[in-house]
């Protein structure tokens, strides 16, 4: 009797199960690499999405940033064990394309998400395309380095306007003068960035190179073509000078570099917009002890541009399997929802890549984002190369060669030569 009931029950369950796609819940597996202040905000967004959508459940996992993340994506996608959706740095797009991990985002996909290409900043959108113009990811934000400043060291100088905002930095000479002023006003290390880490050294170097119109890797794969070599030398020379003058910390790792600014020892910080939440949280907790601001990196050289990258959403291939249309629709629903709620993500300092949010009143009045939001249009992305982008040989070269060079272990010329040969040899 009991067995019979069990069989009946199972049969009923099986029939219901077979019928279910019509109204069943879709589970969307999600991988990201946000573990800091932005991770908290992303988790809040996911929770909100789940609460609003009884038919879709996002199951999120945060993994370790960098090479571990990208190799895990690569291996899991190959055997069909990858996530349904993941975050991806657009600077890693060339690698993703060469690995064949990313499935194309079609017109229909965008429609399912309620999005269209015209909704996005062109710079970010371009970075998400393959050479034929096909999208392989949906850009979520634009993030770059900005110049944070501590007003207390600049008071009474020409570098603060009447409202107490940073002004008057239009060249390297101006910037160095401002650092000198700050040093005289008691700033221990007037400028801080992660001088001993890959990201810190790379982003400052790349910004200085880009501001001179230099190219790190040309489209046909030449490293520092033509006079870009001299421009790169110039960039390293500037950073070396900052070290020699004692304006920037020696061999600072990332955390130490942030601590120097937040503890009020540095007048300036060149760091990513992702540290905005840190500053805001400290300020709200009354633990900061000084007034701060953040602006787009000033025009120090010939043109105003800054290193930038984008977080984006991508759908990896599922091995030999094909993602069911229902699942794909659910995934695109998640992506579309996230884009439209990117204002919460902007709270993590980022600039939304989705224009309706970036142009909304809520964002245009958000501080300090609104101050530096202008950079979205004139940012310089990493070169499109498999050896560039986050956690790439280009980043390694910054830690391995540029950082020691500016600390006096090697001349700028030699360092640039070595960067060149290193990157060129990794490219074959």
């Amino acid at each position, binding site marked *: 009797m009991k067995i019979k009931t069990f069989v009946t029950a199972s049969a009923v369950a099986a029939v219901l199960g077979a019928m279910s796609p019509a109204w069943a819940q879709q589970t969307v597996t999600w991988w990201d690499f946000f573990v800091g202040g932005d991770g908290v905000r992303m988790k809040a967004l996911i929770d909100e999405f789940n609460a609003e959508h009884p038919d879709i459940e996002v199951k999120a996992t945060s993994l370790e940033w960098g090479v571990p993340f*990208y190799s895990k994506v690569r291996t899991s996608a190959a055997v069909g064990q990858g996530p349904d959706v993941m975050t991806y740095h657009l600077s890693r797009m060339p690698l993703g394309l060469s*690995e064949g991990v990313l499935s194309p985002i079609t017109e229909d996909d965008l429609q399912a998400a309620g999005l269209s290409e015209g909704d996005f900043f062109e710079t970010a959108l371009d970075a998400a395309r393959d050479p034929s113009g096909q999208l392989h990811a949906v850009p979520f934000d634009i993030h770059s380095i900005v110049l944070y400043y501590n007003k207390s060291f600049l008071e009474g100088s020409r570098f603060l306007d009447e409202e107490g905002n940073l002004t008057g930095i239009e060249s390297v000479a101006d910037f160095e003068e401002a650092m000198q002023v700050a040093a005289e006003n008691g700033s221990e290390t007037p400028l801080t960035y992660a001088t001993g880490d890959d990201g810190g050294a790379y982003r400052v170097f790349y910004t200085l190179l880009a501001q001179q119109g230099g190219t790190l890797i040309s489209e046909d794969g030449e490293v520092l073509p033509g006079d870009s070599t001299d421009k790169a030398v110039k960039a390293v020379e500037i950073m070396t000078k900052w070290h020699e003058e004692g304006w920037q910390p020696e061999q600072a790792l990332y955390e130490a570099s942030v601590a120097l600014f937040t503890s009020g020892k540095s007048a300036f910080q060149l760091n990513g917009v992702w540290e905005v939440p840190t500053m805001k949280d400290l300020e709200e907790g009354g633990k900061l002890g000084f007034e701060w601001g953040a602006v787009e990196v000033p025009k120090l050289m010939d043109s105003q541009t800054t290193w930038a990258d984008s977080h984006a959403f991508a759908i990896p291939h599922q091995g030999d399997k094909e993602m069911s249309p229902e699942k794909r629709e659910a995934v695109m629903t998640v992506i579309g929802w996230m884009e439209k709620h990117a204002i919460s993500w902007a709270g993590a300092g980022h600039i939304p890549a989705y224009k309706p949010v970036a142009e909304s009143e809520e964002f245009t009045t958000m501080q300090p984002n609104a101050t530096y939001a202008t950079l979205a249009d004139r940012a310089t992305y990493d070169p499109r190369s498999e050896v560039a982008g986050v956690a790439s040989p280009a980043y390694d070269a910054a830690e391995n*060669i540029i*950082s020691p060079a500016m600390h006096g272990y090697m001349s700028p010329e030699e360092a640039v030569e070595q960067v060149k040969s290193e990157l060129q040899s990794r490219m074959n």
Partner: protein
Amino acid sequence: MAMIRNKARHRLVAVSLILPFVAIFALVFAYPVVEVVRMSFTNAPLIGGGEWIGLDNYIRLFSDKLFYTSVVNNGYFVLLTVIPTTVIALGIALAVNRLSGRMQALVLVMFFTPYVLPVSVVTQIWAWMLDFQFGILQPVIEFFTGKSVPVFKNPNWVMPTVATVTIWWTNGFNVLLFLAGLRNIPTELYEAAALDGATRRQLFWRITWPLLWPVTALVLTLQLILQLKIFDQIYLLSEGGPFNSSYVLLLMVYREAFQLNHGGYAAAISLVLFLLIVVISVLQFQILRIGGKGK
């Protein structure tokens, strides 16, 4: 008839006993080795097949400057660790051997504890202690050199520092091996020698050292193989920098395979490393054996 059947049964038992090992060995060692050899002749990415490209990977490898830098660094690291760690372990073992009872156990535990820690913990501890801005060991360095040194960012300091960390971490195991060796030496030998009026020095060089030689040879060989495979500490502490002064072969394998998606090339490098280890360790063991016989 009975004999034959018995023989067949014997064979069956033998095969059934060996089979599990052979199967596992074939699956997790022999097959991967064959695959690595095959892959090293292709341009395969990290996952999936590639085209046969013959010796291209090897030609590229032997013209890659980074390869030679890595080989030299591997050699330098072996020099910095293998003999020092053996000598230190022998010294500690001799000292510990003089202690007895609880005291001996306690001291032994102290020396062995680091070995229990995972590499990530070990490197984190040392990275903090040696941090350029906040490290508690920087005043010590300052005392000797006059200024703080970013040890993992300085081309002269990085390998010796990684070697020091490695020796601190792995020494406990070698101490245990030596201690076991020391306990195997019959005490009568010492007593007889003492009756004949042998000095401390004579006791060591005439009894302890020759009888301990097999253990010493073993420790040296194990260390050589282990240190040629250096990867974790370098990856976690210096990432091969500054300007490749701590780049080693396994780091090159990792970067090529996982960062750049060059499976075939990485296979070629790892095969070269594998052969290097086989040749050097066999060579070393033979030399040590001959050395041992001469005594």
